[in-house]
């Protein structure tokens, strides 16, 4: 495999991992609300809002959107966009933690404890996703540099 292919492969992996991380964090929190509101499952969660993450994953795995994007969009832009996105959702999850833990522990009813646990899970998913994206971004950029540099071997 030559270097340009390797660079595209690594960038496509970054796109896939980033998409899965973001969708997973969002869907897990959505699921926590849906379960909590049972049997009126969609009182707070609009079911239409759960369709686009699924469409995105289908586009990546069936239509190979990750490969198309990696091939035709500049690598620096993919890395920049993914890092902004994962940082933003990480910030949102930190805000969520701050809201969920913003009451004295003595006031935390079972409902508050449920919210606290679900925000912790979301924070962990987004934090891990951000770290993975960071590592994969560096690797993608390194592969990109190798692809551009002359082969001295």
């Amino acid at each position, binding site marked *: 495999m030559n270097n340009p292919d390797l660079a595209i492969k690594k960038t496509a992996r970054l796109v896939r991992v980033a998409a899965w991380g973001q969708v997973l964090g969002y869907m897990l929190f959505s699921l926590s609300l849906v379960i*909590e509101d049972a049997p009126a499952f969609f009182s707070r969660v609009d079911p239409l809002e759960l369709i686009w993450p699924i469409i995105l994953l289908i586009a990546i795995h069936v239509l190979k959107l990750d490969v198309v*994007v990696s*091939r035709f969009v*500049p690598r620096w832009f*993919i890395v*920049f966009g993914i890092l902004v996105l994962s940082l933003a959702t990480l910030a949102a999850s930190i805000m969520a933690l701050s*809201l969920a833990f913003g009451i004295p522990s003595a006031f935390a009813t*079972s409902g508050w404890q449920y919210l606290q646990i679900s925000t912790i899970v979301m924070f962990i998913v987004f934090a891990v996703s951000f770290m993975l994206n960071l590592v994969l971004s560096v690797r993608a950029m390194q592969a990109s540099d190798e692809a551009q540099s002359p082969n001295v071997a």
Partner: protein
Amino acid sequence: MNPDLKRLRTPIIALMIFGLIAFPLATGAAFPLQAASAVSPALQISYEPDIPALEFVTEEPDFIATAVDAGEIGDLAGEGLPSYQRAACGSIDDDICYEICYLGECFIYGDDDDRVKRYKDKVDEVKEGFAKLELARIGTGETIWETVGTCLKSIGAGMGVGGVIAGIVVVADPTGIIKGLAVGGAILSVLGGGAICGGAVVGAGADKVAEEQIVDEIRIANEDAVFEFNDLKQDPPG
């Protein structure tokens, strides 16, 4: 047409279509916050001061099933908070009497004494505060969900639009100021999505202020109730 450009035409068109779909999502990303709150059922708390347990009444009772499950709040005495309940007056010369409790200590007083009335009012305020806090929690969950969704949609759409622009830059390979403007536009589209996301995160901060206000109300009402409790304990009605 340049063969390279011809080969790239289909993926570029696909990317442009993706961008066109993503862009309306980005521009509408701020609206779900308002729309969702407008659609949410109006909640109403029905509170009976003489009944120790909290009672929620909503248009959709199932909606806050879990919140009602927090009926443990209704037992304020169990939480070490001031509480009261109707009791037989016995030898007390009064028609209506209450047993008032705090930290395991309980006394029975007639309700003719203003301090007993004030104590009851403050305990009721504590209960109402907890009910408000539960409703705040329900709203908080929804706010968090909408904020994360807004971030994903706005920045995702910004990436889609920016990706199309950046892709065209690679294919068309413009030079000079046009390239600079195109690259700047691609970056700005992502940052624009980030700004929408940031606005949603900051907006969610209002929920935190509301939470803190409710907690303060509960604390103040609790302290007032404790004050009346201690006053009655030290200087019982004659």
